[in-house]
């Protein structure tokens, strides 16, 4: 059973990667057992009434000093991007379903889009600890949208794509994926919905297993608010918080997502 907990922990450090991306590391003081793919609800303990809701964030790293990678998109992430060491944060985690273990005899391929790289770096570290060096494809709009590419590069055999051609192959992750996808591959992907839908489509066509980590707006993080549904392939909904964020790509009806 997961030792999920709600606790207040100070920010240990914040590292900026350009203006838009920051790594926040917290001093929790004990290891709550976060595994690659788990997420945490993050909120400044001194935010008062606004921003109101905690933000769901994939763990970039776990242990007693867990970290997250944020992209500044709104008020909550703007506040996080300005946080100084010592500032208290309320952390609720670990939550959700982590990445499944790669199948025996399968070669994992990690496909990341922008800030979606966080849970895949955590996974790559776990694979490296088991002596594996997976293939990774990392795409962004421009070379500025590839935070922590150096870290991924140290852990994986890395292929980079940018839409404007400012780094790596000009194009999208799917352009590279098609050529790398062998029969014994197994894909783990996290990024924008449209990217994951395209990756899931290729994997389905090639009959290769594909695991996605989804992101949706979320108020609670543990199955109560019911604010995080995704259309499921059986015609209903799957909830990102308790049935995800990591799940088999075939559970989602990408045509309705």
């Amino acid at each position: 059973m997961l030792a999920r907990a709600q606790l207040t922990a100070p920010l240990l450090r914040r590292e900026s990667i350009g203006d838009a991306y920051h790594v926040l590391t917290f001093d929790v003081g004990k290891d709550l057992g976060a595994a690659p793919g788990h997420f945490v609800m993050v909120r400044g303990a001194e935010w008062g009434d606004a921003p109101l809701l905690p933000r769901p964030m994939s763990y970039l790293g776990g242990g007693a000093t867990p970290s997250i990678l944020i992209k500044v998109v709104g008020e909550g992430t703007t506040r996080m991007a300005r946080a100084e060491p010592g500032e208290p944060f309320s952390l609720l985690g670990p939550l959700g379903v982590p990445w499944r273990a790669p199948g025996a005899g399968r070669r994992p391929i990690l496909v990341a889009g922008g800030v979606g790289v966080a849970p895949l770096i955590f996974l790559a570290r776990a694979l490296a600890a088991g002596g594996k060096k997976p293939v990774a494809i990392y795409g962004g709009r421009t070379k500025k949208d590839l935070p922590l590419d150096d870290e991924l590069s140290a852990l994986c055999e890395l292929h980079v794509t940018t839409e404007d051609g400012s780094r790596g192959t000009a194009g999208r992750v799917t352009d590279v994926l098609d050529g790398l996808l062998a029969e014994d591959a197994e894909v783990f992907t996290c990024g924008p919905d449209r990217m994951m839908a395209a990756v899931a489509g290729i994997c389905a066509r090639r009959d290769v297993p594909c695991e996605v980590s989804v992101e949706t707006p979320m108020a609670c993080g543990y199955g109560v608010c019911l604010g995080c549904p995704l259309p499921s392939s059986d015609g209903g909904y799957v909830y990102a918080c308790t049935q995800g964020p990591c799940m088999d790509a075939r559970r989602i009806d990408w045509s309705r997502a």
Partner: protein
Amino acid sequence: MSRLAVKVGALELRNPVLTASGTFGYGLEYDDFFDVAELGGICTKGLSLAPRAGNPPERICETPASMLNAIGLANVGVEAFCREKLPKLRERGVTVVANIFASSTEDFVAIAERLEAEAGVHALELNVSCPNVSHGGIEFGKDPRLAAQVTAAVRKASKLPLWVKMSPEAGDIVAVAKACEDAGADALTAINTIRGMTIDVDAERPRLANRTGGFSGPALRPIALRIVWDLAGAVSIPIIGIGGISTWRDAVEFLLAGATAIQVGTASFADPCAAKKVLDGLASYCEKKSTTAAALVGRARG
């Protein structure tokens, strides 16, 4: 804890702090956080006769010191609730207020009758005020005559204490409240959310798939408090105050305005222990002031 005990009609609560329907699941999701049985009670997610999948995404959106939700009353249905959830709540000793909703008086009655057959339900809360479904209760909640009709029908079908949840969208909420009191309601819950909207400027579309959603959270609090004040002066049955209560001070405000008990709603999303913290804060306050929760009720009214 006797300092905190309150009576809502004939129903005795160990304290006046409950959790609001739709913000606390079925009360079984909190084992890692605190003992839910310590609360005055929980109001379940709105229960319908058949299970409901809910609205398409996006269902929620944050707004200043508030949020919008258009969940669409997704729930397991009254049958699954009785079979899978209620026994566990009973085992834990939780005071359960079953929030129920339907699009017809007959269905309201059928749900009430189903719950009547079970031990462990302490009160019913009629949701005649959900803004997010096309044939939900809100039509009942806006019209005094319809509100009275559904209240009377459920009153006849069930011996359980009967609370009716008021919609702030009623043209004359005092008239609806009085009609429900006359029809046999034991208490009134005030208020449900009020419809709001937000538009994604980049996409030039409403953010919520349902276009509108129920507005809740701290920003709603002054409106809710004003309505509680008005209702407490107009009816003689107890009022359960709800609307943006996040801290014990907020809870005390509602008690002083005339609410006999309160519900913590959206605050539980920001902090799963919010209701427990409200309860602990209220306990310390009453201790320090050498007063009781019941003595605070309506004290600001002079």
